[in-house]
């Protein structure tokens, strides 16, 4: 049977085991992979290509119009007030979100790792928000941080009345394009909600990482007279680098593509202080029928994520071989 399958007699006759032979196993594997491969080829990569093509067309009405428009839609977007605000918001959201998730995750995992009582309980408490969808988180935090309800009525007792996501101030702002570039205060409220949800993830990652560091290393460092702080700085943190990289990559692609949390929690916000490309794309495509503009936004989002993912994939490949 196997002899029949061999496509190449030379290969078959050669005694070297390293040479590849097409066996039944191979065929079986290919036959199982092929359907999903084809489906992904068509429905993921095919449609990415299609979106790219639409983004270069004039299709900005209900009626499809595939005449070539060059970079017109991209030029329009980068001159657009709303899109500039979106880019600003994405930058600040991503930086704050990733930073906070890493710091919180590291801190909490270090605490949980210090052999406290009820470790499982705390771990589950912090992991649980991850079980919720962003839409649920958005609705909950919308009420918690609403200036006239929730948490704020408690703060009012102390005379503090933050406006959270209704705040339209831009911190440290300066003119940039047609917008004011700086930290939109309102985005902080969204960051809080997102961090609340995703900290559990980085906590779990870091906890696994900490558990992977042999106790002997710490012991050795202690014997050498290192303080606990030094042990973390010089021994543990460097060993956790691969985990930090993974966390950054995963969080970056979440935050660059964020849509549901913002859509449920704040919407675009006054003066687009909490708007993100995802929300803009949805509204301009499906409300305004600007299909080409919407596709251009989608392609820009893809490129933004690629900036993070591609270097990661390349280093991963190098590591494999």
């Amino acid at each position, binding site marked *: *049977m196997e002899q*029949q*399958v061999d496509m190449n007699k030379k290969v078959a006759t050669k005694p070297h085991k390293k040479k590849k032979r097409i066996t*039944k196993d191979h*065929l*079986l594997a290919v*036959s199982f992979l*092929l*359907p999903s491969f*084809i*489906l992904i080829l*068509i429905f993921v990569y095919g449609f990415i290509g299609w979106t790219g093509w639409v983004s270069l067309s004039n299709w*900005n*009405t*209900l*009626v*499809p119009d595939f005449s070539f428009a060059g970079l017109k839609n991209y030029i329009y977007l980068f001159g657009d*007030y*709303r899109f500039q605000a979106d880019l600003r918001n994405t930058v600040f959201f991503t930086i704050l979100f990733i930073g906070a998730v890493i710091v919180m995750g590291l801190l909490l995992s270090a605490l949980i790792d210090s052999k406290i009582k009820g470790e499982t309980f705390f771990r589950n408490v912090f992991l649980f928000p991850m079980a919720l969808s962003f839409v649920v988180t958005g609705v909950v935090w*919308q009420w918690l941080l*609403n*200036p*006239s309800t929730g948490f704020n009525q408690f703060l009012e007792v102390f005379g503090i009345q933050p*406006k*959270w*996501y*209704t705040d*339209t101030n831009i911190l440290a702002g300066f003119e940039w394009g047609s917008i004011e570039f700086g930290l939109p205060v309102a985005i902080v409220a969204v960051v809080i909600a997102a961090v609340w949800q995703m900290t559990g993830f980085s906590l779990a990652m870091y906890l696994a990482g900490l558990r992977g560091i042999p106790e002997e290393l710490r012991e050795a460092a202690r014997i050498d007279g290192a303080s606990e702080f030094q042990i973390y700085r010089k021994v543990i943190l460097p060993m956790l680098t691969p985990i930090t990289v993974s966390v950054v990559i995963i969080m970056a692609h979440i935050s660059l593509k964020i849509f549901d949390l913002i859509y449920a929690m*704040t*919407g*675009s*916000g*006054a*003066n*687009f202080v909490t708007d993100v490309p995802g929300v803009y794309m949805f*509204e*301009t*495509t*499906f*409300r*305004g*029928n*600007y299909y080409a503009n919407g596709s251009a936004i989608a392609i820009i989002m893809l490129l933004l994520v690629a900036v993070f993912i591609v270097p990661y994939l390349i280093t991963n490949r190098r590591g494999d071989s």
Partner: protein
Amino acid sequence: MKKLFSLLLLALTALIFVACNSDTASDSDGGDASGDDGGDGNKTVEIFSWWTGAGEEDGLLALIDLFKEKHPDVEVDNAAISGGAGTNAKAVLATRMQGDDPPSTFQVHGGEELNAGWVAADKMQPLNDFFEEQEWMDKFPQDLIDMVSKDGNIYSVPVNIHRGNVMFYNMSVFEEHNIEIPKTFDEFFAVADKLQEAGVTPLALGDKEAWTATQIFENILLGVLGPDDYTALFNGEIPFTDEKVVEAAEIFKKTLGYVNEDHASRNWQDASQLVGDGEAAMINMGDWAKGYFSNDLNLETNKDFGYFPNPETNGEFVIITDTFGLPKGIENVEETKQFLSVLGSVEGQDVFNPLKGSIPARLDADPSKYDQYGKDTMEDFSEATLVPTLAHGSAAPEGFLTKVNQAVNIFVTQLDVDTFIDTLNNAASEL
């Protein structure tokens, strides 16, 4: 081995077949098993809408029941899609229309959403003969028929009317502060000052979605320009740089000084609640807010809350109308026409509208079936000058509306009249 190969081949062909087929099948999406009208029974009418909310769904179901009673041999497929105030439904509809798989009939706002959208895309069949045959030409107001017509052809049947230029107010707040209903902008601002001094928010606004603010602006525009110039503005006969538009923007700016501080965190229901609770005195909202006041907040019309037309728009009626048309390329034209005939009949409109909380589009409906607000509005409807709404896509195409909403969203914070007028003027190049 050969067996394995042929099996594999079979699996592949099946897959490709499914993939190709799903191109057309997925268009009819929406979770309905019998989405395609082409398939089985030829006597199915598929009704596409976004009526899934409390009152509106009841209205639609009652209408379908009435239709089944009259035409028991025709199946009805209720293809309603919820979410996003129609945005989701419109996205699905666009996909289906582009894939040449239209529903038998679909919900669309009269005006530009119909005319600049589907009629311009050459997807609709004219209904002039049908209107003549049903003797409807004098049953609907001429202004309304014009709104669903393009180049002399009628393209859809209006089923209901909502009014956009209504100011709802909390009656006990008005009584307590001894306030008369303001008829002009000056009176309105005097009232607002008085309320503000007394510690009451004069005007509630919930612009988490920008159309609520756009709605205020359109009513101010109507008040300043009057119905003729208002219509001319959207026809491109008057530029957005006109001094009257600038004046309207200034009044809009001044009005925004009297709204609740947390407006960006509220939607229209949350804002209406402020009026219901007496924290705010007034809200400018389409009259679907009446349903919210009476059904959700359990307030009594003309006792807890009252209503009056926006300042300087007395005698004018900003129309939001849902209509149903006849797309090209459908199979069950006769059955669909039967449905449209029920939809446009007095009986059909009187079954649907009291439940939906709107008024009938026909002038000869039975007022006794409606509550006091409905009766008042029906009277205004038959006498007032009808103008199309901008905020709900009747006065201008959706693309322009999206840009206006963006400009308004920026204006509410920046209050920069020059930039606002500039942006509107640039966007108007699409009109």
